[in-house]
């Protein structure tokens, strides 16, 4: 059926990126071979193999840590904050200059829509470096002292590969630390392009080291005895393993882990805006967002109205080619993640919740999952308790504000929450009572370099972003 309102494809050109057939590790300012078994990274939208990537084994990690230690002792910790700042400003500028290239590469390797990588990820990455560059020579005013920790070992996830890199590297370098960073095994390419940017910026060798690999490489970093600081973003399960691994050591740790955020809609909320917020909350980045609004709590009196508007809106979401500028929802990042989303969705049905997916045609190749909503969900259902990390929304209802608070807080997580209401005093009272590190009121999924981000309870500890984000990379009175 053709309609006069059909979209014509509007693909972003791939010509701007140059993907090499194989990539090494970035250690001490140079690309070197890894000693482990190399692995392939694929385009999740097509299953096309993009490149062969080196795996860092323990010896490689050890070399990277040694390079970072040398750079810390001989160069970076001796350099004035003002000079460190200049390097970070340079990096921020090069990211802006090569922004299109980074955005396209991110969409190819990760599967996220180009409009997100282009308009959200990359601009915030540049802004993050710009923001922390300015702190480098002002640390004494921030309230955490100005003594760096040393070598930071950083392990980041695949959902915002370059953005998570920026959240880790920018504050670490601004505070005078050097880093060994491992990108996720399914999304290593933008981190390796960032390594090239460090070269272009003439960043002293060893200040930033990028080692690729999977869990074993990550474990080698976390447990390396000469790493002073561990920063991890990823699953709660791995976060707990890291907390155990560093027990009894002097290592300082920050963990940014999973979530099961409640997005609470009261009956006086502007419903069209709320529906946009619900859609943004759970379908942004295919729901691969630790702070995703994956539990919709809607006041009973408007539940039917919200659901019908939500379904109507979901039916307009365009799912498909991440490089198409019209695309709203891209590819699921990996076959493994797709299997997990499918499994939990099937459990949702088996446990009695009602499943509805937006009618959309999914491409034949690649990893895809249609935007999906479950109604009739109870607090005991696994889809209300476990992080699905995909475009799947669980809907529960409530009658009173106190019931909403109780349900929202009934989770071991505490990363984020959303509130939609026109009543100011209710916003503030809900914001007080929700046990979550970020509360979005009449908005959702907003990020900014100046705004601290991080969780309560099993969503981890420490903050990234803002003045608060400096604390993780400076020696405190109790470190």
């Amino acid at each position, binding site marked *: 059926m053709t309609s006069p309102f059909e979209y014509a494809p509007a693909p972003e050109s791939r010509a701007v990126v140059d993907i090499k057939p194989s990539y090494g590790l970035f250690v001490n300012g140079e690309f070197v071979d890894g000693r482990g078994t190399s692995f392939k990274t694929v385009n999740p939208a097509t299953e096309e193999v993009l490149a062969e990537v080196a795996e860092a084994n323990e010896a490689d990690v050890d070399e990277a840590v040694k390079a970072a230690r040398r750079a810390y002792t001989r160069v970076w910790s001796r350099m004035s904050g003002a000079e460190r700042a200049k390097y970070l400003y340079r990096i921020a500028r090069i990211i802006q200059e090569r922004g299109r290239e980074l955005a396209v590469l991110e969409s190819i390797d990760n599967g996220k829509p180009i409009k997100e990588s282009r308009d959200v990820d990359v601009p915030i990455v540049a802004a993050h470096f710009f923001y922390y560059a300015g702190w480098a020579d002002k640390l004494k005013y921030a309230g955490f002292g100005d003594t760096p920790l040393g070598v930071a070992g950083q392990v980041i996830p695949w959902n915002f590969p370059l953005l998570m890199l920026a959240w880790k590297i920018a504050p670490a370098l601004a505070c005078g630390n050097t880093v060994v960073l491992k990108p996720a095994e399914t999304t290593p390419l933008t981190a390796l392009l960032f390594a090239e940017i460090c070269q272009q910026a003439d960043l002293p060798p060893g200040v930033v080291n990028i080692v690729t690999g999977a869990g074993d490489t990550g474990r080698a970093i976390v447990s390396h005895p000469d790493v002073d600081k561990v920063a991890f973003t990823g699953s709660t399960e791995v976060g707990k393993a890291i*907390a155990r691994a560093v027990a009894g050591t002097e290592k300082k740790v920050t963990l940014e882990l999973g979530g099961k955020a409640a997005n609470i809609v009261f009956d006086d909320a502007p419903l069209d805006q709320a529906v946009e917020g619900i859609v943004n909350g759970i379908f942004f980045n295919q729901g691969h967002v630790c702070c995703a609004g994956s539990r919709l709590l809607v006041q009973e009196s408007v539940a039917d109205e919200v659901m019908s508007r939500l379904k109507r809106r979901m039916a307009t979401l365009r799912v498909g080619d991440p490089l198409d500028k019209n695309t709203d929802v891209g590819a699921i990042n990996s076959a493994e993640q797709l299997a997990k989303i499918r499994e939990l969705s099937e459990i949702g049905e088996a446990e009695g919740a009602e499943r509805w997916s937006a009618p959309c045609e999914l491409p034949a190749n690649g990893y895809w999952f249609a935007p999906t909503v479950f109604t009739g969900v109870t607090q005991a259902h696994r889809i209300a308790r476990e992080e699905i990390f995909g475009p799947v929304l669980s809907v529960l209802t409530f009658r009173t504000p106190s019931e909403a608070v109780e349900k929202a807080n009934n989770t071991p997580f505490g990363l984020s929450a959303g509130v939609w209401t026109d009543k100011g005093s209710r916003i503030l009272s809900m914001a007080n009572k929700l046990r979550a590190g970020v509360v979005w009121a009449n908005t959702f999924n907003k990020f900014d370099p100046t*705004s601290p981000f991080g969780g309560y*309870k099993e969503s981890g500890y420490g903050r990234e972003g803002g003045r608060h984000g400096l604390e993780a990379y400076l020696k*405190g009175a109790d470190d």
Partner: protein
Amino acid sequence: MSRIDVRKTYKLYIGGAFPRSESGRSYVVNDAKGKLLANASQASRKDARDAVVAARAAFGGWSGRTAYNRAQVVYRIAEVLEGRREQFEAEIRASEGVTAARARAAVDASVDRLVWYAGWADKITQVVGNANPVAGPYFNLSTPEPSGVIAVVAPSGPLLGLVSVVAPLIVTGNTVVVIASEDHPLPSITLGEVMATSDLPGGVVNVLTGSQAEIAPWLASHMDVNGLDLTGVTDVELASELEVAAADNLKRVRRPAPDTDWLVEPDLDRMTRFLETKTVWHPIGV
């Protein structure tokens, strides 16, 4: 013939009451010369869990009070302690065998520390919170909130040590289960009497006496405890095991601090270690 004195029974302090250990156990506490001072309650796993339940029940009310009110209550603890200073000096001298001057210094410092922390209740938010100038039309504010229920292994100074670890936690709105000094528990329980008569709601501070090695693992692995302060743990291996257990629900952990000089004015870190930062966004528009 001289009068026979009335001896005090030292029990636990849980939920605002002074129960014996449910296990019925007690242990001998001697003075510095090895002479019997009292039979202290030897808290069990069940007592520790009861204390966590009491602390959790008290958390909503205590953290929900105004900072001004929490300041008043903590200041009140200082007032009542000052009024009973002779009793504390005597108990400290008896249990630790220190000079009168040192016992007096410990009480002085404890009272002063409570006053110092009391004043922080309505200032810490201003010092560690801030507005964030985000690049968009949004109001954005970060403020500290208490982590929740904190389990504490107190250092050996039964009064000053205990006050120094507990005051910074409660003044910000946390509630506490504290394992008192194993060797010198008696002044800690007497401090419970001070807190019970200072308008501190029951359950905000719960004091357990007994074996650190026996009780601490149950608190470290308890899934309704949000933070673990290992200040008073001297056994390095035990500290490491407790930190591993704490990872089960990602408790915020403060590692042991064996060399702390409790007479020195503290930093903010005993408060900030068990604070969360909450950031609230709201659009700006008409």
